[in-house]
């Protein structure tokens, strides 16, 4: 796992205590596109199952994650695709 993916994983882990967490680096699919860097680690697919999402709207869930990953989104991460589920929905 790359350095950025590791940071994303760690921050989501610390912030959400998720039941499950998948961070997939999809950068290779976007090579040459806007925002792509030669070293990769720009495009991520993230799937999180966490009790913290229960009772929250889609918007609230994503705001929670955006807040945890503020530095990454302001920096190296160009695109983040999120699937955020409460345990009962997974």
């Amino acid at each position: 796992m790359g350095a950025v993916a590791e940071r994303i994983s760690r921050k989501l882990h610390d912030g959400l205590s998720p039941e499950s967490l998948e961070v997939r680096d999809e950068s290779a699919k976007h090579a040459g596109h806007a925002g792509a860097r030669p070293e990769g680690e720009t495009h991520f697919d993230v799937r999180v199952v966490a009790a913290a999402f229960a009772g929250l709207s889609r918007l609230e869930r994503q705001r929670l994650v955006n807040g945890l990953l503020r530095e990454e989104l302001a920096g190296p991460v160009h695109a983040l695709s999120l699937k955020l589920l409460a345990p009962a929905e997974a």
Partner: protein
Amino acid sequence: MTETPVADPIRDFIAQAVEQNPVVLFMKGTPDSPRCGFSSLAVQILDHLAVDFVGVDVLQDEALRQGIKEFSDWPTIPQLYVKGEFVGGSDILREMLQAGELQTLMAEKGVLGTAAGA
């Protein structure tokens, strides 16, 4: 809001766009020629629902590109507004469409096109 208003032309432009148009998509590129896969997806979803919308190309102006992120407190683009209300980005639009919620929202707001059917 209790803040003292200060001159901020970008913020004013965004506020006006959101106020004056029932459906506004802040996107990269134009509806006819999106320049990012996520913006393209958002356009496709709105087209699928036959919703009339105004596309605002944030690539035309770096200040606008940053300004919309601050305006919505949302770090990514595209961003959809319906009747002045922030709905979300492409992940949320896709999930809402799949759950049938986007159709309901558009119908409630009176902006759903006729071509999409009931």
